[in-house]
C-alpha cells in the first residue's frame, strides 16, 4: 500500500527535471496560449479590448467564436508583407555582417594564448554591463549630423558636408550589428576554442596549406557554432524594435514597429497578436527544419 503510494508521489529526480518544464509552462506556453487566443478574437472597445472566445449563450450553450479575419487581414494588406520581408532582410544582412566581423574575432581569441583568452572574452562581454538603451543612444551621438563621426571626417578633410547617417538603414545596421555581435562571438568562440588543433596538423601533414586547412577542417567543424550564433542574432533582430525606432528612418517598415503601432496606437490587440503569432511561425518553421537537417548531417557525431 505504502509502496503504491510512493510510486505515485514524485521522486527527487523528477522534481528536479520538472523545474525547467514548469518554467517553460509558466512563462512561455501559457502566455503563448493567451496571445494565440487573442489572435482569434476581434476588437472591442472595452477592457480588455477584445471579445472573449468562449461565451455562454442565453440557451446555456457554450459558443466558440473563432475570428480568422485577423490572419486574412495580414495576408490582404501589403503593409504587413512588406514589414515582414523588410525585417527579415534587415535581420539577414545584420546577421551576415555579425558573422563576417565576429568569426575572425572569435577565431583570433580562441587561438590566442590561454592566459589572455579570458581577458579578451571579458572585453567582448563588457558592453553588457552598460544599459542597452544607453549604448544605442551613444550611437546617435556618433552618427548624427554634427556628431563625432561626421566632425572627425570633416576635420581630416575627407568630406566638407556632413553625411546624413542617422535615420538611415545604415544606422540601423550599425546599431544591430554592434548590439548583437557578442551573441555571434560567444557560441563561435566556445566552438573554436574546443577544436582539436592536431586535426589541422594532420591536414597540413596530408598536404593542406594553412588556408586550405581552414576551409576544409576548421570551417566545417565550426558549423554548429556558426548556426548557433546566426540564430542568436537573427531571431531577436527580426523582431527588433528599439534600434530601428531610435536610429532608423521613421518610415522604415519593421515588423517590431508594426506590432507596437497595432498594439499601442491602434489598440487592436487581436491583429497585434496575429502579427506576433505569424512572426513566430515564420521563424520557428525554418529553424526546426534547419535543426533537423543538421542533426541528420551530424548523425549524432556530437557524442564522441
Amino acid at each position, binding site marked *: 500500500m505504502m509502496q503504491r503510494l510512493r510510486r505515485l508521489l514524485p521522486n527527487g529526480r523528477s522534481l528536479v527535471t520538472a523545474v525547467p518544464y514548469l518554467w517553460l509552462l509558466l512563462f512561455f506556453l501559457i502566455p503563448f496560449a493567451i496571445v494565440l487566443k487573442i489572435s482569434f478574437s476581434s476588437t472591442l472597445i472595452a477592457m480588455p479590448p477584445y471579445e472573449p472566445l468562449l461565451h455562454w449563450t442565453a440557451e446555456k450553450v457554450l459558443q466558440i467564436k473563432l475570428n480568422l479575419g485577423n490572419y486574412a487581414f495580414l495576408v490582404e494588406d501589403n503593409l504587413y508583407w512588406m514589414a515582414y520581408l523588410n525585417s527579415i532582410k534587415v535581420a539577414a544582412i545584420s546577421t551576415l555582417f555579425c558573422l563576417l566581423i565576429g568569426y575572425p574575432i572569435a577565431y583570433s581569441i580562441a587561438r590566442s594564448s590561454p592566459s589572455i583568452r579570458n581577458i579578451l572574452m571579458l572585453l567582448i562581454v563588457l558592453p553588457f554591463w552598460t544599459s542597452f538603451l544607453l549604448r544605442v543612444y551613444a550611437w546617435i551621438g556618433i552618427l548624427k549630423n554634427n556628431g563625432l563621426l561626421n566632425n572627425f571626417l570633416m576635420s581630416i578633410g575627407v568630406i566638407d558636408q556632413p553625411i546624413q547617417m542617422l535615420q538611415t538603414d545604415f544606422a540601423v545596421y550599425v546599431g544591430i550589428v554592434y548590439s548583437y555581435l557578442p551573441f555571434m562571438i560567444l557560441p563561435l568562440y566556445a566552438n573554436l576554442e574546443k577544436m582539436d588543433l592536431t586535426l589541422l*596538423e594532420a591536414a597540413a601533414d596530408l598536404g593542406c596549406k594553412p588556408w586550405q586547412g581552414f576551409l576544409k577542417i576548421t570551417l566545417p567543424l565550426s558549423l554548429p557554432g556558426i548556426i548557433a550564433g546566426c540564430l542568436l542574432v537573427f531571431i531577436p533582430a527580426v523582431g527588433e524594435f528599439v534600434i530601428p525606432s531610435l536610429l532608423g528612418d521613421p518610415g522604415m517598415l519593421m515588423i517590431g514597429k508594426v506590432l507596437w503601432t497595432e498594439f499601442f496606437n491602434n489598440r487592436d490587440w487581436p491583429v497585434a497578436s496575429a502579427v506576433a503569432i505569424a512572426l513566430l511561425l515564420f521563424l520557428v518553421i525554418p529553424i526546426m527544419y534547419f535543426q533537423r537537417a543538421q542533426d541528420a548531417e551530424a*548523425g549524432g557525431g556530437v557524442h564522441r
Partner: protein
Amino acid sequence: MATSPRVTQQKFQPWTDPDAKPYVRIEKVTKKFGDFVAVDDVSLDIFKKEIFCLLGASGCGKTTLLRMLAGFERPTSGKIFIDGIDMTLIPPYERPVNMMFQSYAIFPHMTVEQNVAFGLKQEGLPKDEIAQRVNDMLNMVKLGPFGKRKPHQLSGGQRQRVALARALVKKPKLLLLDEPLAALDKKLREHTQFELINIQETLGVTFIVVTHDQEEAMTLSTRIGLMNHGEIVQVGTPDQMYEYPNSRFVSEFIGSVNMFEGRLTDDEPSFVRIACDDLEAPIYVDHGVSSAPDATVWAAIRPEKITITREKPTEPDNWASAVVQDIAYMGDMSIYLLRLDSGKVVRVTQPNAYRHADDRITWDERVYLHWHATSPVVVTK
C-alpha cells in the same frame, strides 16, 4: 619479452655497411623552447625500410624530434635530410612524409573513405585513381566494409587503422608514428604490432616510431634510439640494447637489471675482477674494460642470467649468499627477490620448466646465487 617477429629479417642490417647511404639524416639537431632544451645536439642516420624506434620516458624529447621530422617544429640549429634533400625549412604540407598521430586526429566530419582520400584529393589525382587507392588501402588494413562509416561509429582499433591507412595511402617516403599503439588494450596491441610489421614489409616504407614502451620498441624495431633529457644515449638493435647497454641508464631502462657498484681490482685486457661491497666474492668478467684503474664501475646482471642453488658454489668468484624474501609466481616463470647479507635485494627470474617440482625453493630459505663470467655487463657511467 614477447617473441620478436624480426627473426626473419636478421640479415637486414644496412647500418653495418659503411657504403650504405642513410635515408634520413638528422645532423646536430637542437630544439629549444625558451630556455628549455627539448632536443640536444642529436645526430642520427636511419636507413631505407627500417623501423626505427625513438624510445624514452615522457618529456625526453622524442616527440619533439618526430615533430621536426614532420615539419611541425623547426630545429633551433642543425639540419634534417630525407632521401638526400635538405628538409629543414620545408613546411609539413610539402614534405614526402606522413604522420600517424597519437590521438589519430581523424577528421570527425568525414567518413572513413573521405578521411583516407583526403591526402590524395589534396594532390589533385584523378577520381578513379583515388577511389582505387583508397579501396586497396582500406582492404589492406581490413576496413573494407567500413568505408561509409563516420569515425564515431568505429572502435578504437578501427580508428587506429583509419589513421594508418590515411597516412600510408599517400605512399610517403617516411612514415612517422607517434605512440601508435598506446591507446589500444594489451591483446589488440600485440596483434596490431605484428600487423604493422607485415604492412611495413609489404609496402617497404621507412617507419620512425616514437614510444615510451620498451617492449613495443623491442618487438617492432630494427633499431632503437634511446633518448634521455633531449639526447640520444644509445642506438642499437634490440638485442644490442639489452645485452650490451653502454650505461646504467640504458641497462635500467630496457628490461630489469641488478646493478652492483664496485672497484676494479684486476684490470687485464682479457678479464677484470670487481670488488663489490655488497658481495662476499668478487665479480669476474671474461673481457677487458676501458676504464681508469680504481675508478668506480657498475656490473649489471640481468635477472634471468643468475641461477639459484642450495649448495655453496665452489668457484672463487661470481656468487653470493642470500635469503629468499619474496617469490612471485607468474606461470611461465617465477620472480625471486633475494636479500643479500648487506641488505641489497637481488631480482632473479627462473623458468618453471617442470610442472611437478616438490622441492621448490621457498620463502626464508638460505640460498646461493651464481652467474657465469659472460653475464655481467660492466658500465662506467
